[in-house]
């Protein structure tokens, strides 16, 4: 077993299981309440699969009113609530506990309105990320944040985690592309925050909600920014003989005033794993690979690429390969975006998500190698190089408890290193349970207390996704509203 504590269930609540399920069935009829033990199993974890807890019940409402009714009930009954989208969290953000109700928004997945003139789409929060882009795609628009999990993950989960993607160097992360939400508070109050207009009249509650990991309320609808697709986009592969020269190349590109839409890094092991899976045509004889994407008109792309190639040459680039067709471009991205899935076919892994100042890249790469060597583990590195968001995938065997412990320890060492060099524990995957006990590495008690006090305004008794984000000891409760 791993070492991350999940609180013991409240026996009192467990004893009321049947009564609670019956009450929920009155609020959400038909198949909206899942209580059969085998049907509950798919909800026992998310993509942080090393930890599992079967919840008391799962509720899949279809309307905001149902979400409000269920929350109000849980609030009164003192039952913890775990908000859930698609359950692809890599940090255990959506992992339940035995005495909790999971409220999943996956059945609320419709597009409610699209307004191209305002460049906005209003959607139910359970829609998948890719479906938003697919919906507006035929009209030449897209939704910019593109987590690799976009086929499965929901806008609700994206908001919960403030998710990013490969293209956020230019377009920003979820919080920069979100204009409004409908959110239900624990007491059943429905708030409309923001809308198709810009900026907040008072405090920026939208900014607070985004990335709050299901601890503030349940989001049922969202207004997101949609953007016109660029005229063209072209990913180019740059292979380097050392990871350091690839890292330095990235810094030089930015220093030269060029901001490509994406700059993704893969090391040798990651290249091998992804190439075997996606047959993307990645060069196999290099130590590090950069996927750099430029966009715009043909002439714009040429000009940008020309400058980037010149810089890459100065850093001793070994191979340069431009995608020659839409199919090749798609294959290049398929390889990168399936990096986690492809790795999962080779071994169990935990995926780190620290961010570092990009200037520290060479040092951090070297130190990370030392750390994983020390534990005798293998690591595959893929990351968003332009913004310093690292994703070392630490490979291990989940059935070997000693190795699992080592993997967790190595992960903690790497994240501590990220903070030490001026970065942070998580760039886009969230704290969840995974990084919860490391929060004191990054924050002081005062920092954490201020965050917890704000959290307590929305959930004074810690009922919403309670085991997450903040260390279990030293928690601050609020006064009941």
């Amino acid at each position, binding site marked *: 077993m791993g070492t991350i504590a999940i609180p013991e269930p409240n026996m009192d609540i467990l004893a009321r299981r049947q009564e609670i399920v019956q009450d929920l069935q009155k609020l959400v009829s038909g198949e909206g309440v899942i209580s059969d033990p085998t049907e509950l199993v798919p909800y026992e974890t998310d993509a942080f699969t090393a930890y599992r807890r079967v919840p008391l019940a799962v509720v899949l409402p279809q309307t905001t009113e149902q979400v409000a009714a269920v929350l109000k009930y849980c609030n009164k009954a003192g039952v913890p609530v775990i908000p859930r989208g698609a359950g692809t969290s890599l940090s255990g953000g959506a992992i339940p506990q035995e005495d909790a109700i999971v409220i999943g928004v996956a059945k609320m997945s419709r597009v409610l309105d699209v307004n191209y003139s305002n460049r906005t789409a209003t959607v139910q929060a359970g829609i998948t990320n890719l479906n938003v882009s697919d919906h507006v795609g035929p009209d030449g628009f897209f939704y910019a944040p593109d987590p690799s999990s976009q086929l499965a993950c929901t806008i609700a989960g994206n908001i919960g985690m403030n998710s990013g993607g490969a293209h956020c160097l230019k377009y920003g992360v979820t919080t920069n592309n979100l204009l409004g939400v409908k959110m239900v508070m624990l007491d059943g109050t429905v708030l409309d925050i923001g809308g198709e207009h810009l900026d907040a009249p008072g405090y920026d509650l939208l900014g607070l909600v985004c990335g709050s990991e299901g601890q503030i309320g349940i989001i049922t609808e969202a207004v997101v920014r949609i953007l*016109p697709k660029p005229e063209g986009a072209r990913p180019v592969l740059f292979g380097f003989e050392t990871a350091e020269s690839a890292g330095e190349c990235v810094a030089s590109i930015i220093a030269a005033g060029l901001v490509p839409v994406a700059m993704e890094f893969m090391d040798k092991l990651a290249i091998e794993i992804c190439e075997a899976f996606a047959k993307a045509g990645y060069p196999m004889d290099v130590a590090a690979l950069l996927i750099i994407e430029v966009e715009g008109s043909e002439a714009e792309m040429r000009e940008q690429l020309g400058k980037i190639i010149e810089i890459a040459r100065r850093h001793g680039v070994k191979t340069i390969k431009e995608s020659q067709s839409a199919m090749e471009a798609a294959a290049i991205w398929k390889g990168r975006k399936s990096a986690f899935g492809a790795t999962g076919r080779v071994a169990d892994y935990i995926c780190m998500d620290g961010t570092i100042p990009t200037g520290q890249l060479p040092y951090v790469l070297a130190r990370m190698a030392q750390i994983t060597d020390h534990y005798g583990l293998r690591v595959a590195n893929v990351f968003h190089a332009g913004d310093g968001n690292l994703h070392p995938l630490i490979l291990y065997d989940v059935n070997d408890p000693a190795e699992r412990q080592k993997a967790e320890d190595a992960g903690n060492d790497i994240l501590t290193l990220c903070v030490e060099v001026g970065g942070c524990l998580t760039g886009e995957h969230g704290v969840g349970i995974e990084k919860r006990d490391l929060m004191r590495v990054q924050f002081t008690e005062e920092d954490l207390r201020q965050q917890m006090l704000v959290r307590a305004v929305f959930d004074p008794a810690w009922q919403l996704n309670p085991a997450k984000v903040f260390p279990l000891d030293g928690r601050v409760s609020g006064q009941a509203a």
Partner: protein
Amino acid sequence: MSDLTPASEAELVSMVQQAMSDATPLFVRGNGTRSGLGRTVQSATTLSTSNLSGITLLEPAEMVFSAKAGTPVSVVEAALAEHGQALTFEPMDHRRLYGTDKEPTIGAVAAGNISGPRRIISGAARDSLIGVRFVNGKGELIKNGGRVMKNVTGLDLVKLLSGSWGTLGILSEVTFKVLPKPIHSATLQFSNLADDKAIAALCEAMKSQFEASGAAHLPAGLDGDQAKTLIRLEGFETQLRYRLDQMAKYLSEFGKAEEIAEAESAVLWQGIRDCGPLAEPTDHAVWKISVAPTKGADFMARFASTHDTRYFFDWSGGLIWVAIDPQTHADAGASALRKLLAETGGHATLMRGPADLRSRIEVFHPQPAAVMRITSQIKNTFDPQNIFNPGFMYSGV
């Protein structure tokens, strides 16, 4: 009126602790270029961040800088310009509106979430603000966010602080991400379009792939006799040329576009950024209104049918600046604006107005009861004794 001007974070902390134990409310400001905004605050002591000045981190290759809160925006901009970079959100300079002097500070840009015309393409100040250090009303030094541009560790208090106008904490240091400064820019001008037509043109421009970085409409009489519909484009030389040509063609149904070259274009957008067209007469009240772009023209037509106003649109029609004479309209149109906004969606802030007006009407847009309750409770967690700008935004907040 006594002034506190801490020169270090430690001094700031001890001054706040002192104010807390004396229960002395503090009027928090940078260099005061925006005095004239907000509800009227009763407090004898002003705390200015003017002595907390200097850039503390400048990493062009990481597109990031940190500066102490009182650092003049001009100092920041000059330092960034040396590396060909800029604040992407083009912060408004309020001195023309308020007739103030001195230098606007970077901390106030963060605290007020102050953006300009580029907000429609690059996001607001809060979107570029990635880290803060501040002292809360208990005299605790708190940090949130950091210096890396992707960071989701814990609750995002950076966003809460941005736009809280000093009511939650006194910022001591702020960190922004930046972008390369556009190499060239120019403007396309369409003339004589009615508001609804003009905003349709702006929205059409924003739907295109040519990345308009400004989309404004000045009705006739504001800046010359002709209505001007303005679309700013940017890029390196050939890219800009291409974009100007393509955009003019793409919008040809709105008439023939005139090109305004770089230098003149820059002056024009600075005026729009700073609400120049409505700065005079200085005794007129000025509103900043945010609506969905497609609602802008109709909203203004309805308001103007009952009120004598001058106005212009930015942000593709979604930002409306409105000037109104409080002598003619005693509440400066507040109740009518807000009634209309209840239908349209959006909000209105009174950016300028005589003190007596600001004590009679809500300066910041009134919020629903549930949101107001949350607002007060959040304020209470940062500043339980209500010593920072008490009542600046809302009663008790």
